[in-house]
């Protein structure tokens, strides 16, 4: 038993090590990299991906996958912008409405997967097309956010110290991460997810509400994607139907690099948080370097992904023996 626990924590340990090593290397290589402002910017720049990855972690922990997240981000961001800018809604009810819609989208996805016993991969793929299509139907063009209350909210910054300011976006991200960690660790829903992903048959025999848990996981992912869509409008001051293309892949990569096993059952939100930070460090390093092309980021991420997957594979092999 003890051995099982250590084996499952190796990937997360490795993730933290890689993150620290990358951060140190970048800090030594670039001037002004190791400042609090750059760190806060990591959180702000990757909040959309980060929040999506939180939902994705729940789904993957349960043994599923959600490919529709990037499209939901786009759909929500453009809906939010249309509600506020074209329909004259106040941002608060608009935000609540799109959050509810995103959660409903996820719930429906989960219901279809559970009731018809279809592969999550396929159903969420349909969700990907549906979300992107609806977003484009709503508006082909990017919509600027000009609502005075919203923009004043977004330009409010907290001074952490003399040189460091922090906006609303990183705060939302950190709160969501903390909430998600609490849900995963200390609620029945969280434990049921781990049980379901670890071994579905055993979960059924233990009397765990498999259907509720599975639908719930996709609902959470829909909620997170919707929140990420709102955060996108805060971060970029616009709603855009073509944002979040291929974001589902980045999210899956962040989750895997964060030490969550794609077969489900093992992993956690904190690892994903570190995985997203690794994304941020690589991206910011590319920006600091200036001469390197941004597509090296993709290749770097894929390299890391390969490394972590092979490591996971070796650990799994040892566990099964």
């Amino acid at each position, binding site marked *: 038993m003890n051995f099982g626990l250590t084996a499952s924590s190796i990937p997360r340990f490795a993730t933290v090590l890689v993150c620290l090593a990358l951060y140190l290397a970048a800090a030594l290589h670039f001037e002004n990299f190791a400042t609090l402002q750059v760190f806060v910017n990591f959180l702000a720049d990757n909040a959309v991906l980060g929040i999506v990855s939180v939902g994705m972690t729940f789904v993957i922990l349960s043994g599923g*996958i959600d490919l529709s997240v990037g499209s939901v981000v786009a759909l929500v961001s453009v809906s939010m912008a249309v509600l506020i800018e074209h329909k004259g809604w106040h941002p608060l009810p608009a935000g609540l409405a799109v959050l509810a819609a995103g959660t409903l989208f996820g719930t429906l996805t989960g219901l*279809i997967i559970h*009731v*018809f*016993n*279809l*592969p999550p*991969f*396929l*159903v969420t*793929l*349909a*969700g*990907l*097309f*549906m979300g*992107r*299509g*609806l977003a*484009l*139907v709503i508006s*082909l063009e990017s919509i600027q956010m000009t609502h005075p209350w919203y923009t004043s909210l977004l330009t409010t910054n907290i001074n952490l110290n003399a040189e460091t300011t922090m906006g609303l976006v990183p705060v939302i991200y950190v709160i969501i991460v903390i909430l998600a960690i609490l849900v995963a660790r200390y609620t029945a829903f969280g434990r049921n997810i781990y049980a379901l992903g670890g071994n579905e048959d055993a979960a059924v025999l233990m009397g765990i509400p498999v259907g509720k848990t599975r639908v719930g996981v996709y609902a959470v992912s829909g909620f997170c994607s919707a929140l990420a869509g709102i955060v996108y409008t805060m971060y970029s001051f616009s709603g855009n139907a073509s944002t979040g*293309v291929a974001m589902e*892949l*980045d999210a*899956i*990569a962040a989750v*895997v690099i964060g030490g969550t096993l*794609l*077969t489900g059952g093992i992993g956690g939100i904190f690892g994903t948080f570190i995985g997203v930070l690794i994304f941020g460090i690589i991206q910011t390093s590319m920006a600091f370097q200036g001469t390197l*092309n941004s*597509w*090296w*980021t*993709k*290749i770097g*991420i*894929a*390299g890391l*992904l*390969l490394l972590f*997957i*092979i490591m996971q*594979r070796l650990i799994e*092999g040892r566990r099964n023996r």
Partner: protein
Amino acid sequence: MKNQNVIWALIALVLLLALNAAFTPGFFHLEMRDGHLYGSLVDILDRAAPVTLMALGMTLVIATGGIDLSVGSLMAISGATAALALSMGYSGPVALLLALLSGLVAGLINGSLVAFLGIQPIVATLILMVSGRGVAQLITNGQPLTFNNKFIDVFGNGFFLTLPFSVTVVMIALIIIAALTRRTALGLYLESVGNGPLASRLSGLPVPGVLLFAYATSGVCAALAGVVAAADIKAADSNTAGLYAELDAILAVVIGGTALTGGRFTLIGSVIGALLMQAMTTTILARGIQMQWTQVVKASVILIVCILQSPAVREKILAPMTRRRRRAQQ
């Protein structure tokens, strides 16, 4: 049993064409100009070519119980490779071979990860999916690379037997793959691996070899699709070439009646699936509906077809029907 699911796709395709015959004026109009056929039907065949090619390779991979997410990125790599080879002064056939080789190598990488390291196919091919577009960008140095070569141009804009040449490419690929899998034991091997890799290994099948073959074929098919797509626009655009094509290819296979769980496959079904999806897109365009609706319609059709094929529905709706038929026969 095997053909039951193909029939759903075929019915959908026939229904769609029938609706068009009734409501879209000129949809079935074919025109002969300079010895070439033109019309919406020809257009469907031509535009469906890249997805059909990928769907053929994908069928074999899905038959083994796997999936290949990298085909869209491989399209970009192959187009970029061909364009780079041409810009370096190589001849058309050499550029084509190099492009196909890039697909073969990528397919073998995917296959090795699955066959030798035992990595889940979704994850193994995700790696090339994420990095492939980056690699293609590096090959073309981030810019769309244009080319002008008579040999390569034929793949996108040529004609053979009055039809676009891309149709011939698809036919050749279909015949080769069908001959390899249905005239030899290879097809049974693929299905056997899909049904149970362990049982296949214990009964002496070369499981890693079979997996390598499936992923390599998928890679080469994707590379061929990449050449056709690049030749069509006479340029390699690493950003947009084959974007979301992997999803279209997977959907074509699934709609065609090859279950994602593996174990059996139908090549003709995948071709019909790809044609159905292109027919939907062409219908939407021909009826003057906004392009954006394509994806919404596509998603709805996928869901409906999948739900019809799902075990839950089949047990509740179709099983009573067959039971009744059986009782009537008795």
